[in-house]
């Protein structure tokens, strides 16, 4: 009887974590290994797998559109992340003051965050419309000329970045608010006594103190940005002139439109390394030890 109790106690933890083990093997370990195997094969789901050696890699390095898509994604990040930080920090600073109806304003900023990206994209596609979109109507209303928000190859990705900022900034306002509230009030009071103005307080006290929050915002935005897919998929299909094809969109097309499974796996693997590299670079340059 005692033996039963002991063995049961010993097995129990393993039983509890066994779902995770199964899940990990099935949806993490195996896919990573299979992914690498797949990069050396050609497969379109309906035919048997065909060994092709390094062909997929050769194809990758000759694939101008793929590198274009990575470039597009990076450009998106370069616009989106700073814009997001500036706007979120600015609005968080404001909300951090003693203001009336703070909850209402906070709720308004947060509204786009919870809604599906699909909704935001369909909505903004109409706002960005060349002929009848709201933005161009406002422009012509004040005498300016229309802008090809989604039809000008140089602007399209910027338009998507602006939309993405609008959608997500509410979340980062909240995160910054939490970070701002960790700065002890005494620091500001001491600075006031020394006669510091608002900017000095901001750059000397606030920014360094919320560095961990900034770092977290950068990492979250980066990982989110690298997953950019549904916005270009709906809004522009990748055009005009492939200026809005994100890396994930391109991989999706290769894998699930043309069914080049082996090639798509190769692209995915390569892209994953890029993401890890970027995140590591960011860690080095942005995160500071306290």
């Amino acid at each position, binding site marked *: 009887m005692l033996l039963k109790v002991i063995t049961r106690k010993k097995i129990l933890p393993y039983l509890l974590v066994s779902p995770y083990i199964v899940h990990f093997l099935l949806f993490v370990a195996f896919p990573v290994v299979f992914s690498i195997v797949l990069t050396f094969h050609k497969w*379109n789901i*309906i035919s048997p797998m065909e060994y092709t050696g390094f062909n997929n890699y050769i194809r990758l390095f000759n694939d101008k559109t793929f590198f274009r898509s990575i470039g597009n994604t990076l450009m998106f990040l370069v616009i989106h992340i700073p814009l997001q930080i500036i706007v979120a920090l600015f609005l968080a600073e404001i909300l951090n003051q003693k203001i009336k109806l703070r909850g209402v304003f906070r709720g308004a900023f947060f509204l786009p965050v919870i809604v599906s990206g699909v909704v935001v994209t369909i909505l903004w596609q109409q706002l960005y419309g060349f002929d009848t979109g709201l933005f161009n109507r406002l422009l012509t209303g004040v005498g300016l000329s229309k802008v090809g928000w989604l039809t000008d190859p140089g602007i399209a990705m910027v338009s998507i970045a602006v939309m993405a900022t609008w959608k997500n900034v509410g979340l980062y306002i909240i995160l910054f608010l939490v970070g701002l509230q960790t700065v002890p009030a005494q620091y500001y009071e001491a600075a006031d006594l020394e006669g510091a103005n608002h900017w000095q307080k901001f750059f000397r006290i606030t920014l360094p103190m919320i560095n961990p929050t900034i770092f977290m915002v950068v990492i979250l935005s980066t990982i989110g940005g690298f997953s950019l897919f549904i916005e270009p998929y709906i809004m522009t299909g990748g055009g005009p002139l*492939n200026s809005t094809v994100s890396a994930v969109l391109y991989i999706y097309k290769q894998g699930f439109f043309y069914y080049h499974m082996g090639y798509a796996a190769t692209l995915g693997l390569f892209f994953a390394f890029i993401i890890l590299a970027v995140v590591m670079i960011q860690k080095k340059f942005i995160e500071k030890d306290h």
Partner: protein
Amino acid sequence: MSRFFINIALLILIWLPLQSCNSNNKSSDTKLIYWCSNNSYEIQFAKQLTEKWNKNNPNVSVKYQPVPEGRSSEEIILAAVVGKTTPDIYSNMWQGDVEAYAQAKVLVALDTLKGFIDFLNERCDSEVIEEIRSLDGHIYQIPWKINPIMLIYNEKIMSDLGSSGPPQTYSDFFAASAKFQKDVNGDGYIDRWFGYSEVLVTWWQRFFDFYPLYLAASGGAPLVKGDKAVFNNEYAIDVFKFLRMLYKKNYFSREQLSARQDVFLAEVIATRFTGPWEIAHADKFKPKGFEYNFSSMPVPDDHKGPIYTYGDPKNIVIFKTCKNPQAAWEYVKTLIDRNGDLKLLEFTNQLPRRKNINTDVFFSGYFNKNPKMKIFADQSKYVRGTDASPVLKEVFDLISQEYEACVIYGTKSPEQAIKDASDAVNLLFLK
């Protein structure tokens, strides 16, 4: 203790669906499933012919089913192939999809069936038979129907412009376009265009602009042969030049025109590249006094010989999951023999891909009643489908990207665009 077993039960519950599902009952040899498209006319066609067959063949019963709703019929077929739930017979397969399925060995090689070759030779001419032959030499599809792309034009507008008929050459086309171009409401923007083609970069849009024009200019030349791109030639370049000029001079609108009103019937445009499906629509909605007709696609000024076009061919295939392909073939024969073809015309107004259909007396009754269809029937001798290649979608996608750069945005010369497309396609075939 009971908790222990409940945990185990939970785990088993998760493992349960991992057991093989999908064990089909072994149906008897004489039950066949036929998937038709979910076009209501084709469903009627399937219904009548299937009922007739079942009456005459009590030991081989055929059940027809419209293709299930989904993203597209191509997606549905792919899902069925992957899930091994394919029907026995499918009649709406786009010719461009066949090669991939043939290479995956999921289709029955029809030339191995009794009576097939003779029947095929009677129904189709040798050019068509070679066109549908797969790269391994076998034949995996039966040409069923085509919808040739031609030029629809507004007769009154053409005579108003002083033309003796529709524009035949690129120069004619430009001349007529220049005359027709107008700014009717005086807001400084052109609002009348001679023609219109959707400015979409989607791969299948090329079937309504680039591809039929290319076939017309080149006398039906292929785009790819085996594993090489063969379209880097003067014809493709001429077509790109033609289309680019149309957009540059605003003879074709670069903006998307309203989808609510039919711009051809509203006389906002005078021509369009379209197929026989337009007839029913135009006859139903055209304003009083509106007269239209069809003509072949425009060609380069120095063109000689017949004018080809693209036919959007849909063909019939038999899947390898079929337990009795010979019986399936006997059934399919009734869909495409003379009677079946006539019924197809009468029910759906779509052209069977049968040789000499424009001169065959059997069909003259139908064409006398439908003179506009006769134009398409005459064109059907000079129709091309698609080349046999497992990556056709991607070929057209790559061409579309160069199309966007050169024709719509003018950032590349036609020569460079065609070369880039050709290079990209060849990269696809990297062995």
